[in-house]
């Protein structure tokens, strides 16, 4: 770890003022400290934002505002989240371990970085870590990397579970920064790699997430399901956040599907959603919708299994949600 300065911010305004090139914000640190120890992140200055008074989960009319420093554990255990956004609570509970969830913040969870083995090893090339150095994953180990929205420069996945649920819930990310305040809708915070895989998100330098706002939950039942070969404490091979509502006539009136573990960003399955809405809630329709979505997949030899896995998950989850 390179030497760095450490400062604690007393307010969001102060945090943003303290930002300069080479600065990183420190939340719970569960990923940033990990990356600093590996030499992947080398900030000159840390501004600790973990104690900012942004740790409340508040009901605001029919919406819920979740502060950026709310710990994952507290988010999942909050009565409002458990009752109204079970998909989100479930997603958070499947992530990491009890210890990590106690410390990891909502904003930090969104901004965690890929666990691609090459990205985490500074002795090997990686376009995300060292732009232009190459992507050995494409010919090498990509068994748990992306099949959707990849580029020739990068096939990394975003590892968050929570972000997948937030993408399905149309959450809004509140940001403040040197350029003022703004709201970024989910999905939309995270980018696809394209030619600039070093940029995970659309945030500008110095931007600080202050809250995540949850609109009213989609109608109908919802689920989050995560697939992994170890029964717990593992990143997803593929995960799904889904909500489905079916009218009395048996047609789909509302549908949200987001996938994790398949792309550089939480993947909102918009093609599948469009294919389903207004149509019958049948296994056949679910399969067609899943296949419509996964037509865009560009699997590699060792992650090709993710295509049938995502397809099976979409179909099985929707069948479970259908009345």
């Amino acid at each position, binding site marked *: *770890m*390179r*030497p760095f300065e450490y400062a604690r911010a007393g307010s969001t305004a102060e945090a943003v003022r303290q930002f300069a090139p080479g600065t990183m914000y420190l939340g719970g640190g569960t990923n940033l400290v990990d990356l600093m120890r590996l*030499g992947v992140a080398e900030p000159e200055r840390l501004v600790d934002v973990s104690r900012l008074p942004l740790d409340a989960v508040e009901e605001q009319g029919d919406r819920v505002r979740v502060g950026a420093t709310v710990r994952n554990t507290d988010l999942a255990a909050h009565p409002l989240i458990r009752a109204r956004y079970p998909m989100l609570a479930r997603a958070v509970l499947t992530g990491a371990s009890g210890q990590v969830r106690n410390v990891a913040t909502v904003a930090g969870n969104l901004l965690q970085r890929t*666990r691609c*083995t*090459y990205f*985490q*090893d500074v*002795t*090997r090339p990686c376009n995300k870590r060292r732009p232009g150095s190459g992507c*050995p994953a494409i*010919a*090498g*180990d990509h*068994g748990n990397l992306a099949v959707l929205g990849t580029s020739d420069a990068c096939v990394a996945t975003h590892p968050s579970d929570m972000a997948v649920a937030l993408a399905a819930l149309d959450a809004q990310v509140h940001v403040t920064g040197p350029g003022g305040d703004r709201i970024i809708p989910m999905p939309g915070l995270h980018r696809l790699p394209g030619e600039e895989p070093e940029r995970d998100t659309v945030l500008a330098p110095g931007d600080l997430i202050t809250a995540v706002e949850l609109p009213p939950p989609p109608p109908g039942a919802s689920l989050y399901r995560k*697939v*992994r*070969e*170890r*029964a*717990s*404490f*593992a*990143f997803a*091979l*593929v995960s799904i956040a889904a909500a489905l509502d079916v009218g009395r006539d048996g047609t789909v009136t509302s549908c949200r599907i987001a996938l994790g573990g398949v792309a550089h960003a939480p993947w909102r399955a918009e093609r599948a959603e469009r294919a389903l809405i207004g149509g019958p809630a049948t296994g056949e329709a679910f399969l067609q919708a899943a296949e419509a979505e996964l037509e865009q997949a560009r699997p590699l030899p*060792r*992650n*090709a*299994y993710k295509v*049938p*896995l995502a397809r*099976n*998950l979409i179909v*099985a989850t929707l069948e479970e949600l259908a009345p």
Partner: protein
Amino acid sequence: MNRIEGRVKVTGLATYAAEYPAENVAYAYAVQAQIAKGRVKRVDAAAALELPGVLAVLSCEAAPRLPEDADPELALFQRREVAYRGQIVAAVVADTYEIARDAAAHVRVDYDADDHDVRLSGDHPGLYQPEVVNPNFPSDTDKGDVEAGLAAAATTVDVTYETPVLHNNPMEPHAALALWDTEGRLLVYDTAQGTSGSRDTIAKTLGLPPEQVRVVSRHVGGGFGSKGTTRPQAILAALASRMVGRPVKIALTRQQMFDVTGYRTPTIQRLRLGVDGDGRLTALEHLAYEQSSTLVEFAEQTATPTRVMYASPALRTGHRLVRLDVATPSWMRAPGECPGMYALESAMDELACAAGLDPVELRIRNEPETEPFSGVPFSSRNLVGCLREGAHRFGWRHRDPRPGVTREGEWLVGTGVAASTYPARRSPCQAVATMRDGDVLVQVAAADIGTGARTALTRIAANALGIAPERVHVELGDSDLPRAPVAGGSAGTASWGTAVVRACEELRRDGKEGRADTTDEVKADAELARHAFGAQFAEVRVSAVTGEVRVSRLLGVFAAGHIVDEKLARSQFLGGMTMGLGMALMEETLTDEEFGGFLHRDLAQYHVPACADAQHVEAVWLEEEDGELNPMGSKGIGEIGIVGTAAAIGNAVHHATGHRFRELPITPAKILTARF
């Protein structure tokens, strides 16, 4: 009786290698090769040495000379050649860990890289037959006519299995603290599975007489073989300490452990079996392909359990090795037996399916009278008893033999069985028992790596003396104690226990002190086949949606002589089986063909079973009387638990899905690719 050191372990007071207090200690951090083959051209340590707090940089350009005949994996900084990616090529010593680690990133090493070859294959042109396989078995054995046996068989199978690189991953990283005194004597607190041998190796590597070196390892945070031989951290700490004139501590990072503390070789294993119409083997052939480094020949004894298991008129086993630009493979829990029995017991299941026989019955029908290859009688053998007891407890008779027919919702359910075996050995050992204030002090340089050696030896001594265990105090984990073999080969308790019993017997005669050296006793052991046996039964659930496999029941039944301590034994069996579950379903280190070295070098990528994976594991045993082993009548139990587990689980996955997976681990990726 609970574990004797239990209280210090649950209160956080047990002292592991890196945890001994030392005045003015400095910290070392290793720099690793970034090429897989070639030479170090130049080491530029200037930037590192400029950092405040940096004391020294060791490398092939700045290190004490060591004797020529040192183990090349331990002779640090003596040569410019790089044999594998991750090999230690330099190290920084500094006032603090933070400074040492940062400075290591500032050491610039330039290389002349050569093309490397890191891929094991069954048709690699470099394959050869080693003279012997570990520890000293013939590489190849041949009895009867395998081709004729196969030709005459009613049913045959010819199948190939693959197992990946596996890493021991004890929870305690390899660590050492080295201190030199003013007379030039060296004290190393090390993570060693045996201090006597480690003392000898460190002394030899450094060119010191053994009596000038002391190794202390009072508590060791697991080893599973990876601490059975001396590892570079002990040498590095000693060299660095001598260089800076201060005590030096080093703890390898988890990532570094993957590169320099050994691993289980990957294997490719071809099995050919035939049975006649009565389900009796007509031929059995087991050929194993595996790797070693260019530095050292390490030939794992993968096919040797096949010489022990089943009666067959024709029996052939063999090993082929290729030397690659990789780190040297090493000991990992049940080396040989573990991967070998995975393949044999999977093939037996395939044979049972092909012949329409129950897999428990097939094994019973091929029970041998004497050890199949050698013809030597068994001291005791209760495989059939274990199979029957296990089948009864597991409810095997209710099993529908047809694969792929039992389904609960999306979950396909299947059961499988496999046999276990592991040799029951002992080695020469010394011990001293002394009266001390009315109690008995027992001293032996044994190691407690989590096996419960202190507790087991306390019981053994108390039994031998006819006194309460509370009156016995066992001292171990120090090379200044009477010489003892490593905690390895499941021979620890048998070897140390024999010496402790003899010392206690001598103490009873003498009244004050008893000394024992079991060299002659062990040498006089009659020629018999001594092995523990067991049977493992698994029930798995495989998701037809996701390909996830969950083990809903795992039962092991073992026959391992007299069980010295029931609580410790159960933990050992369960622990081995849990590691076997990991081998079956998740454990795998990838080799980086492009750059050399390993990928997935941490515990988030190399998955070992978590608590949620091992909820339904059960171990029981049959009492077995065997007077041909040692004074305790015990067989080793540290390794047999992992033998057969992966086959039982793999066989259950076949029964659940109807598909045979012949490459471990059996992951959702493989299941989805094959089946859905």
